[in-house]
C-alpha cells in the first residue's frame, strides 16, 4: 500500500483544466520527483493534497484514509506537511520562534517545543542563526527555515515546492545533501522541482506533468530519455 495515493484527481478553474485525472503513488521512504513545465499543474496537485484546494473529481488517500474535506491544519496533524514555492515566513519572529511554532503542532510545552525546534534547526544547518530575526535571512537560509518549520511538525511525508529555485550550484548541492539526510531519517518526500541538477540524482522515481496530465513516470534516467518529456520541455522542430 502506498503512503500517499492520488487517484484520478481533476481540478478545474473555470474553463481551465489544471489537473486532468492525475494518478500517482508515493511509497514510504522514497523521494518522488514531480517535474513539468510552468503551468503543468504541480503546485495545484500540492494544494489538493494538502487541503488548500478541493479536487473536483478523484480520491486522495494517506495511510489508507481519505484526505478529502480535511482542512490544511488537519492534514498537517495527520503527518503531511508542505513548503511553499514563494517562500513564506513569520516575518516578525526569530528563527527559533518560528520553528518552535511548527513544533507546537505536537506539544503544548514551551521547553519541548524549543528543544524540538533546536534539533530541527541543527538538521537544516541553521543552529548558529537561532536568534536572528527572519528579516535578516537570505534566500537560502529562508528555504532552510521553511524546511525547519516543516520538519518541526514531525511529518511522515513532506511536500517540497521548488526548494532549489533561485539557488546557486553550491547551494543546490547543500540542499541535495539535506534532502538525502531527511530521507534517511525515515521521511518520505514528494518534491516539485525545476532544477534537474537537484532532482535527477536524488529522486527514486520521477513523475512528469504537462498541461495537467501525467505524461511519464519512471526512473530518472528513463524519464530523461522519454520522447514525450523532451517534447514537452523543448518542443519539436
Amino acid at each position: 500500500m502506498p503512503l500517499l495515493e492520488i487517484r484520478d484527481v481533476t481540478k478545474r478553474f473555470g474553463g481551465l483544466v489544471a489537473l486532468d485525472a492525475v494518478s500517482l503513488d508515493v511509497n514510504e521512504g522514497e523521494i518522488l520527483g514531480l517535474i513539468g513545465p510552468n503551468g503543468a499543474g504541480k503546485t495545484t496537485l500540492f494544494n489538493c493534497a494538502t487541503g488548500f484546494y478541493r479536487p473536483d473529481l478523484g480520491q486522495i488517500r494517506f495511510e489508507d484514509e481519505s484526505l478529502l474535506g480535511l482542512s490544511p491544519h488537519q492534514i498537517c496533524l495527520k503527518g503531511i506537511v508542505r513548503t511553499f514555492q514563494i517562500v513564506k515566513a513569520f516575518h516578525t519572529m526569530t528563527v527559533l520562534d518560528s520553528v518552535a511554532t511548527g513544533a507546537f503542532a505536537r506539544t503544548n510545552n514551551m521547553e519541548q517545543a524549543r528543544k524540538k525546534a533546536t534539533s530541527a534547526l541543527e538538521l537544516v544547518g541553521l543552529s548558529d542563526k537561532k536568534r536572528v530575526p527572519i528579516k535578516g535571512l537570505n534566500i537560502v537560509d529562508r528555504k532552510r527555515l521553511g524546511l525547519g518549520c516543516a520538519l518541526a511538525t514531525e511529518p511522515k511525508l513532506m511536500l517540497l515546492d521548488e526548494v532549489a529555485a533561485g539557488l546557486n550550484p553550491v547551494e543546490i548541492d547543500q540542499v541535495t545533501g539535506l534532502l538525502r539526510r531527511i530521507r534517511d531519517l525515515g521521511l518520505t518526500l514528494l518534491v516539485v522541482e525545476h532544477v534537474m541538477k537537484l532532482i535527477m540524482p536524488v529522486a527514486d522515481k520521477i513523475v512528469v506533468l504537462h498541461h495537467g496530465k501525467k505524461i511519464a513516470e519512471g526512473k530518472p534516467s528513463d524519464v530523461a530519455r522519454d520522447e514525450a518529456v523532451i517534447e514537452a520541455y523543448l518542443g519539436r522542430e
Partner: protein
Amino acid sequence: MAGLLVAAIIPIVLTPFLLHVAIMVGLFAYVGSAWNLGCGYTGKLSWGHSAFMGLGAYASTMLYIAYRITPWLGALVGILVAAGFGMIVGAICFRLGLKGHYFVIATIALAEIVRVSFINWADLGGAWGLLMPVVRDSLYDFQFHSTRIPYYYIIFAMLLGLLYLKWRITNSKLGYYFTAIKDDEEMAESLGIDTFKYKVIAMMISAALTAFGGTFYAQYVMYISPDTVMSVHVSTDILMGPVVGGMGTLLGPLLGSAIVQPIMELTRAYVGRRGLDYVVAGSLTVAVALMRPSGVIGWFEKPFEAIFASSSQTHKEG
C-alpha cells in the same frame, strides 16, 4: 519599577480633575490593551468593541439594580456574556472569511445591532439607560464617593493584571499561534494551526477583558445608556489608544491612552464645544496612522526594551 512607584504615589497629589483624567487614561489603557490582545495580536481590527464594553457594563449594573449582586460578580457575568458574543462575532466574520475593511465594517454593524437592540429593550432601561443607585463607599458595592482615589488604584491594578496576562500569553503556545496567524495565515495553517479556532479564541479573550472595563466604567460614571457605552464613538475611544501608541505592542495602548485621553479631557474642560474633543483626538489619530502606522511607541522603544529585556521572550511583541 520607578514608573510603578510614580503611578502608585501620583493620585495623592493630583487635583480631583487631574485624578479624573488619570483614571480615564487608566480605563482606556486597559480597554485599549484588551482590544490589542485580540486585535493587535492577530491583525484583525475590530471597530465594534463597544458592544463588549456595553455588555459588561449592562450585566453588572442590571444584576446590581435587580438583585444587589456585587458588581465584581456582575463583572464575571458580563465577561461570560461578552465572551459568548465575541465567539458569535468571530465565528460569523472568520467563517465568512472577512478581511481588511470588510471585517471592520462587519464589526461596526454587529455592535450597532447590539446598541439598537438595547435602545428598544424597555426592561433594560431602553434609550434612557440605567442609573446606578448611590450607596455609601464600599468595595463590595464598587462605589467610592468621598474620594475617587480607589477607582484609580482599581483600574491600574486591572491594567497591571492585563499586562501580566498578555506577557504570559506571549510566552506560550497561544501567543506563538496568534503571532503566526498575524504574520502569515496560510503558513500557519500549513503548520497545523487551526487558524479559525485561534482567531475566535483571540476575539473571545479580547471581548471578555473589554467587558470588565465596561463594569468599571459603569461603577465610575454611575450611569450607562446604549449611547454612552455601546455606540461607535466608544469603539473609537477604545482603539485610539493602541493606534496612536502602537498596535500589537505591550505598552503601546498605555502610551497612546496617556496621549489621547488628556487631550480629549482638556479640550472638553477648557474649550467645551461639543464634539471638538473628537475633532482634535481624531485628527491626531489619523495623522499618526498616516505618518507613523507603527505608533509613537517606536520613539520610546529603546528605554522600554531596556526595562523588559529581562523577559525570556525573544521575538518582537506580536
